[in-house]
């Protein structure tokens, strides 16, 4: 017996809620669940430090998980649908690589002979990463207007990614070890760096991009049939492709700017979701993927804290470690990946 799409969909929000609560409960300081509950419901807690920890560290981190997980997963879904390719993800357009190049330029500007910033702050990094993403996005869009073929576009995105990555290697080779280290830390990805102001900014950015995706529901479904059929049922190819690429760039760029290049989630979550919600219809898939992405991100973040109280592992080490076996298992079980 197979659950139909609507029934199994109910499980996901429950899972998300559970993981959110568990995520809030875990951290390097041991706070009893009762105290967390009373802090969250607005009561004064026995220990004022706990109040700050719960609100300004754990809550911000959990919310960042929600935002980043949903955004990257929606971005990945859009790319897999647009390119009709199961291996596409938010990074296929070369956006993360563009962001990495820009950020590495900031961190290693000394090596390049530039003295732009002495100590890059979080806003500087976020701003630079966004610029890097948009730089690549505009190159992609310029090329997309000349090429009507999505497969070529996919390859060009991958090439841009490879080219920018190689520039980053050159910069790394030329730079001092301490500069390399701050760049390396950025590439590990981090969900715990954001304060409330940054979260508000990121929320506005990601929600607007998410609304654009919702507006593209019909076009995304149409793209599943390929460009000729999509066009024949009244989908405006150029406009919808632009909107899909734009919202994907904003979703990926926003997350990369604030949290670093978080790998794998965007690729894996659409596949995991389609295993539970067996539909092609983006009207169901978009919200389902957003919820599943948030849940997986919370889960991965919980896993980063497992080794013990002393360390927190980088998020990127966990996403692939958990995600890769799961996707392999799915492929073996289902014999194929559906787009």
């Amino acid at each position, binding site marked *: 017996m197979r659950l139909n799409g609507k029934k199994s969909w109910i499980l996901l929000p429950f899972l998300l809620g559970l993981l959110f609560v568990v995520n809030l409960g875990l951290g390097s300081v041991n706070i009893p669940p009762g105290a967390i509950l009373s802090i969250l419901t607005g009561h004064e807690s026995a220990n004022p430090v706990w109040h700050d920890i719960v609100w300004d560290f754990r809550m911000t981190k959990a919310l960042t998980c929600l935002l980043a997980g949903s955004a990257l997963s929606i971005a990945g879904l859009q790319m897999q649908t647009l390119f009709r390719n199961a291996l596409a993800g938010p990074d296929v357009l070369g956006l993360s690589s563009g962001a990495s190049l820009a950020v590495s330029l900031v961190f290693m500007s000394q090596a390049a002979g530039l003295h732009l910033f002495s100590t890059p702050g979080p806003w500087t990094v976020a701003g630079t990463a966004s610029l890097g993403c948009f730089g690549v996005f505009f190159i992609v869009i310029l090329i997309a207007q000349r090429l009507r073929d999505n497969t070529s576009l996919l390859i060009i995105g991958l090439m841009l990614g490879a080219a920018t990555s190689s520039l980053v290697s050159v910069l790394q080779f030329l730079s001092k070890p301490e500069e390399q280290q701050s760049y390396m830390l950025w590439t590990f990805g981090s969900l715990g760096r954001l304060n409330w102001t940054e979260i508000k900014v990121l929320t506005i950015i990601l929600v607007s991009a998410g609304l654009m995706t919702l507006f593209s529901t*019909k076009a995304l479904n149409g793209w599943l049939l*390929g460009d000729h*059929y999509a066009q024949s049922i*009244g989908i405006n190819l150029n406009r919808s492709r632009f909107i899909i690429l734009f919202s994907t760039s904003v979703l990926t760029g926003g997350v990369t700017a604030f949290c670093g290049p978080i790998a794998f989630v965007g690729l894996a979550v659409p596949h995991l979701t389609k295993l539970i919600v067996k539909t092609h219809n983006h*009207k169901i898939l978009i919200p389902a993927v957003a919820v599943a992405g948030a849940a997986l991100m919370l889960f991965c973040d919980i896993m980063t804290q497992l080794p013990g109280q002393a360390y927190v592992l980088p998020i990127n080490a966990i996403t692939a470690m958990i995600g890769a076996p799961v996707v392999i298992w799915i492929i073996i079980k289902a014999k194929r990946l559906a787009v």
Partner: protein
Amino acid sequence: MKQTITPLLSLQALTVGYVTSVGSNILFENLDLGLNAGELTCFMGPNGIGKSTLIRTLAGLQTPLAGTVRHAGALLPSGQKSNGPLPQLTSVVLTDKVTSVQMNVRELVSFGRYPYLGWNITLSRDDKDKVEAALAEVHIQHLASHRLFELSDGQLQMVMIARALAQETPVILLDEPTAHLDLNNRVEVMNLLRRLARKLDKAILIATHELDLALQTADLIWLAGREKTLITGMPEDLVLSGVFDEVFQFKGYNLKTGRVQHEAYRGKAVSVSGHGHALLWTKNALERNGFEVISAPSGLYIEVVGVDDATTWVLQDGNTFHSLRALLAHLP
């Protein structure tokens, strides 16, 4: 056949092809043709002559190099890229593969309703009824909840036709709908399209290179000639006037008799008497094996006795055979 009716879709001085970096590659030039309601038109020509390109241009998926595609009512001007397909007037069945194999049949057919839906694609009661009607029209209601990967090629083609029907357009254009299908499915698809054209008063154009089926089902043939033009006419007229022979350059196939020509390499004549299908297939077997079948009695004489499943073959020397294979093994 009345020719005074206005065609549902007409080609006016239409030039079709591609613009490449070295200039334009014209496939068809200056076409003036029309598709009429209730008629099935087969668009024939050798592979690679540009059938798919013309189909796409007529569907508005590709811009014509010159001229116009006019719908009864609406106009599709050339050179205006914004003016693309008219999804409420033309639906298509293409050779493009649908890769979303997890989709079920009803969902795929529902895509036909997209031109009538808003961004949040909510199917109304009426839309759902039309999807069911389209499924019923091609007799695939029993497949409605099957996923696409569970279907045979023939069934999948029926689903694509149902999807086009659900789009409720006066014109349906199909590109090689019978390719990769076995004989039964090919006949079924052609008969279905034939019936739909009549019953729903649609103008249906099928691009195909399958001569035998087209000759027996089409009301009208568009035949791609060598001069980037199309010759049109009723199938029978075109056969008799020898236009087909000119275009297809048949090698060993006689279109007028519908038979493959065999060389009488044995240099032996044989006469056969009998009647019905048994006689027909006996001649076929003899000719294929290099005998010349003549009507006047000669040295070799075979009498076909009985009919169909109880046939025996009697040679002039009295030998009797129960299969053609045995007979041919005995013949010199």
